């Protein structure tokens, strides 16, 4: 057993209101530059929809992630031979129109325009060419289901569902899916990079692009099944979400998580077994990947694991953070959070609590169906999104969420706690209290448990006083 630590994030979709506040500080701090203006390290997609870039979930188009070839795990696009043969032209690369052509407005026209019969107006112009463009697509074009009638059929999560039914106005459903780099345990971008520029930080699992080593081969862009590595057209290099590592090293959480007004995000440390990554990613069927993934996440409160982790060099503060990790509780203890598209086999580390939704009248109420099955958002859709189509874990997570609500209502409003609903979903009162606390009340320090970066303290700090800084120029 080889233990590694990994930062992970959980997003509670049940509480996401689609305000895009997470995207804004990320944009302002990391991608507010020419060449990066079309990149959204964090974006919020409205589901159903084809997303950003268009149809990123359909791996038949850009061939991201891994697949099983017989028993062996291979990059979907093809391994070394494929890269070698196609090194001059990546046949699977999305083009900028799949994201959107970035644009800007010439606001000066409003105040500089000479007096005319009509008011001056600003027109969008392309940030690539500077010429005026007609806007036909943007990073958030599908928000609030805009254009669902046209694009909805392209949503890969409608697999095994009657799309036409859910495109009818009375059956329509929606929720938001904030997306960022998954900082996968088995990252396809890293495996795709011919230059070896992408790597995973051993101490915390953050996946980064070495900007001095990136030669712009672009295979990470198509190789990432989540399409979260971007190509800077100005510098000719790849860029991606850096999990705000300068903040995380200082013990602060990421900008997207910190700014979330709905407080839907949880960030913490997980321990996992590196030796079992290969077999986990190569699980026999797509639906086996999620359980196998859960299985290699190690319990930091198990004394054996703790001892092994310490002896293998996991920093003490990292271990301490892992022991009170909110994400471990959501992912493993309570099984509320589920991975995004585990069938891509990259073992993603940004997980999602599925959203509850209003009970629809679509099914005859006389039928003895579970209320969970009568929710507006079809379980099958969520299962296609989160568990490779396996409905059982999604149903369990939703039932638990519903049970917590029901129990809390009986306890707080009806003053008669109904523990019956808990037994049905395998929870006890103590656990429910913890779930309720974390999902509804948790404060900053409960939601984000991040250790500061370990630093070497073996030198005399006084000896180094004045050794760094701005020097005599100031």
């Amino acid at each position: 057993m080889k233990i590694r630590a990994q930062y992970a994030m959980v997003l509670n979709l049940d509480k996401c209101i689609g305000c895009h506040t997470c995207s804004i500080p990320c944009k302002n701090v990391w991608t507010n530059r020419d060449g990066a203006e079309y990149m959204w390290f964090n974006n919020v997609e409205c589901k159903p929809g084809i997303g950003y870039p268009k149809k990123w979930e359909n791996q038949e188009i850009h061939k991201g992630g891994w697949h099983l070839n017989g028993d062996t795990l291979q990059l979907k696009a093809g391994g070394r031979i494929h890269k070698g043969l196609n090194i001059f032209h990546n046949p699977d690369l999305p083009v900028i129109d799949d994201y959107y052509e970035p644009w800007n407005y010439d606001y000066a026209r409003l105040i500089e325009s000479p007096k005319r019969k009509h008011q001056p107006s600003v027109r969008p112009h392309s940030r690539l060419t500077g010429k005026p463009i007609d806007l036909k697509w943007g990073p958030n074009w599908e928000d609030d289901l805009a254009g669902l009638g046209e694009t909805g059929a392209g949503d890969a999560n409608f697999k095994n569902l009657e799309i036409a039914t859910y495109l009818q106005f009375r059956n329509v459903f929606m929720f938001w899916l904030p997306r960022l780099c998954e900082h996968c345990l088995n990252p396809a971008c890293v495996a795709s990079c011919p230059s070896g520029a992408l790597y995973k930080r051993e101490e915390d699992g953050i996946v980064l692009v070495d900007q001095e080593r990136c030669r712009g081969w672009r295979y990470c862009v198509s190789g990432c099944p989540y399409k979260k590595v971007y190509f800077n057209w100005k510098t000719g290099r790849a860029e991606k979400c850096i999990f705000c590592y300068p903040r995380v090293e200082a013990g602060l959480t990421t900008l997207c998580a910190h700014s979330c007004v709905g407080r839907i995000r949880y960030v913490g440390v997980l321990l996992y077994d590196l030796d079992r990554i290969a077999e986990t990613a190569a699980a026999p069927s797509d639906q086996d990947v999620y359980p196998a993934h859960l299985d290699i996440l190690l319990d930091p409160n198990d004394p054996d694991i703790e001892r092994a982790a310490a002896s293998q060099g996991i920093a003490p503060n990292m271990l301490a953070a892992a022991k009170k990790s909110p994400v471990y509780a959501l992912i493993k203890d309570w099984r509320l959070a589920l991975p995004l598209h585990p069938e891509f086999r990259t073992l993603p580390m940004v997980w999602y609590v599925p959203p509850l939704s209003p009970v629809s009248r679509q099914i005859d109420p006389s039928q003895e169906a579970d209320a969970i099955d009568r929710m507006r958002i079809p379980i099958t859709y969520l299962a296609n999104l989160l568990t490779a189509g396996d409905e059982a874990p999604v149903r369990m997570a939703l039932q638990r969420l519903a049970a917590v609500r029901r129990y809390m209502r009986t306890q707080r409003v009806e003053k008669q706690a109904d523990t019956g609903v808990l037994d049905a979903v395998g929870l006890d009162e103590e656990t429910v209290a913890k779930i309720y606390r974390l999902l509804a009340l948790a404060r900053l320090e409960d939601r984000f448990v991040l250790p500061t970066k370990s630093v070497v303290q073996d030198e005399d700090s006084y000896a180094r006083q004045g050794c760094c800084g701005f020097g005599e120029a100031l």
Partner: protein
Amino acid sequence: MDLSYTLVFTVFPYLCLTTFVVGHSYRYVTDRYAWNARSSQLLDNKSLRWGTVLFHLGIILTFLGHAGGLLIPQKYYDLFGITSQMHLAIAHWMGEVVGIAALAGCLLLLRRRLTNDRVRAAGSVNDLITLGGLTLVVAGGVYNVFFGNYNVLDSVAPWIRGIVFFSPEPELMRPVPLGFKIHVTLAWALLGFSPFSRLVHIWSAPVFYFFRNPILFRRNPELTRKVVDSRS
């Protein structure tokens, strides 16, 4: 000895070669951040495909052909029974095929770079000079292989070997037709210009990709010391 021949066929090649060697090394050491191919595939994919594939295959095979034909003296070919006539015939036919491929690629890329709004806006003057220079050198080469009809094995080849092995003999170039003179001179100029352009990516062929682990980890070197500390 004619001064102009010394200048053009000894001094100028060495000037360019020195810039080439020093320039690439210096840039690799000091400017790793800008060391890449500056692909524009993201901006326009369709018009790139044939141009880039034809150009790269053509130019790499052309390079191998030049290296094999010019740097290895004919006497070694004779050892394997390849007479200079066979050598010339092979060079001629292969040169025509790969030269045309490289030239077609160049022209497709040049058209794309000049007519595609996005590619033109994202590109720089440097990119245009690079591609224009490549097109001129390749076009000169193709012209020579089709219409030159001249045995380079006894003149240009020993002259190039003289440059490479530091015993330059510019007089060897005297009987060479003008087309070849222009081609080699432009080629030296392009070599000299290459360290200042995106051509630096020629050194970045991803050889290690074929041998390395798929997933790479890097450890903060400071933390390695920390581990030792915490154990003690």
